[in-house]
């Protein structure tokens, strides 16, 4: 599964990231709305996680040796479904069921519904606590598997996130790799205006983590950061502070002011897909 961490992989990963975005847009079109801007911003991180960094078996989502991936921000589910479909964990045809009755793809991520979904999100600030327990459990089993968890900058408002951040360092969880998606957007407005969380790198360093800040939409930078996180020698948990752009890849969505939860007019979905394709070809 693992590929050599070279720039030569970038075209492949770029195509993966593109496909994740395309899958997410297609699901958004079905419901006419969704957390599309987040899916577009996190697509590059997911592409690197699923197609460069992680060990797993698409045909066997509960394989004991798999790296665990915990999506703490359950409202990003559409992005993870897009990645799981691109990875072959679920057939592409299931895109059409997104958010429908009896679908395995509910609008908010639920572990009991979706193969490859390791936790139920929706309530924020839960994931990294579960990740701490899983990382402890994997160590107990002498497993070499890692726990990856994505959470959002808005979740930094939740005290439980800091409980878990302290705890992961205390327990020296070097098998835990967290990614905080800093898109500076939460429900009521810009994250930094809701609660000042910077200087984030300094804080996380002070809490005992190995910290890297990267442009989360620069595939080469994200690859390098995942590689450094995996190969870091110290017995510390690792975190990527990934600065991302809401709506990345679809210019008219990137520029939309209120993009926490996007309603797109029916004709705009095709425009969005077209803009995505155009961006890829340019």
């Amino acid at each position, binding site marked *: 599964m693992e590929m050599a961490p070279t720039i030569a992989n970038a075209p492949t990963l770029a195509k993966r990231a593109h496909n994740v975005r395309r899958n997410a847009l297609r699901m958004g079109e079905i419901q006419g709305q969704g957390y599309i801007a987040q899916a577009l911003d996190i697509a590059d991180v997911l592409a690197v996680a699923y197609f460069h960094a992680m060990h797993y078996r698409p045909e066997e989502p509960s394989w004991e040796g798999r790296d665990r991936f915990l999506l703490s921000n359950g409202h990003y589910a559409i992005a993870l479904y897009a990645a799981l479909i691109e990875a072959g964990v679920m057939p592409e045809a299931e895109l059409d069921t997104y958010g429908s009755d009896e679908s395995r793809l509910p609008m908010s991520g639920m572990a*009991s519904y979706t193969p490859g979904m390791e936790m139920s999100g929706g309530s924020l600030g839960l994931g990294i606590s*579960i990740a701490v*327990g899983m990382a402890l459990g994997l160590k107990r*089993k002498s497993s070499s598997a890692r726990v990856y968890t994505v959470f959002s900058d808005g979740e930094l408002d939740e005290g439980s996130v800091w*409980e*878990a951040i302290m705890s992961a360092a205390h327990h020296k969880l070097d098998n835990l790799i967290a990614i905080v998606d800093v898109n500076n957007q939460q429900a009521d407005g810009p994250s930094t205006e809701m609660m000042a969380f910077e200087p984030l790198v300094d804080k996380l360093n002070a809490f005992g983590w190995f910290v890297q800040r990267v442009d989360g939409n620069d595939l080469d930078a994200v690859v390098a950061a995942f590689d450094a996180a995996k190969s870091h020698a110290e017995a510390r948990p690792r975190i990527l502070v990934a600065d991302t752009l809401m709506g990345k890849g679809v210019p008219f969505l990137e520029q939309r002011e209120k993009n926490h939860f996007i309603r797109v007019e029916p004709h705009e979905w095709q425009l969005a897909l077209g803009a995505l394709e155009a961006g890829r070809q340019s």
Partner: protein
Amino acid sequence: MNTTVSATPPGKPRLITSAMIASIAAEGQRTKSAPFGHALVELARNRTDVIGMTADLGKYTDLHIFAKAFPDRYYQMGMAEQLLFGAASGLAAEGFTPFATTYAVFASRRAYDFIHQTIAEEDRNVKIVCALPGLTSGYGPSHQAAEDLALFRAMPNMTVIDPCDAHEIEQLVPAIASHQGPAYVRLLRGQVPVVLDEYGYKFELGKAALIREGGDVLIISTGIMTMRALEAAKELAGDRVDAAVLHVPTIKPLDAETILREARKPGRLVVVAENHTVIGGLGEAVAGLLMRSGVHPVFRQIALPDEFLAAGALPTLHDRYGISTPEVSRQIKHWLGR
């Protein structure tokens, strides 16, 4: 055996302090020390999946016994109850059976969402064992878990247990470990009274047990109130009131069959007694069951009032709020018109 009543000279109660962890054992009562801690150690000898976890309350939930015996299977998570239960969920997801301890107030109030979402919703095998249930601390509302049964009863997938004494705690530890899924247990810690062994009682998950027969009143009780009900029944016998005691340690799932069988027997007042607010605990669970089943006895509740309880000495508070043995007897006689 001494009881609260016989050990306390009338008019001059020897008051246990309002300390946070005042013992519920009456003076002279037969007790065992840390039954949960010792039972967990016994269990863990043959169950390598058993993990002990706490949020800075190992010593006060008797988990320190386990921590000493199995230091490599013990996790101190710091004073962070949300993390405690989230991490317990993660360990359960990896195939372990965590016993996570804190005070009942912190599990039920502070970490409810974490237990709901990361444990119950995913049906994870976490055992939540919580000290100071109901009114077993005189420390005031911060530490009095009067609502925990209502909250955890309402949570799907959750098994809810309110044991009476040390004998029962010893037996429920292996029983809940064998049960697949989350469980919430109200823990009596420290010097815990031993009562039920005299009645040949054996804990069975999900089962109610008729501990005493009687023709005038059926007391359906749980937790420490079974101890009080048995003591009251002895007192009432002196007043020629014949009281049956049905012990219901598993609040959820409720043993509907046994409760209905006993409540259907004609001519008895039915009293539900619990160390919990009158709202949403065993009393209302039984009332709902009876109503839904078309069983309509004269029904009364002994429970804590719907108010924030006072700080103070436990014997004073148990008298004030009607859950001491003399108060149980008095209320029943009043309802029977004796």
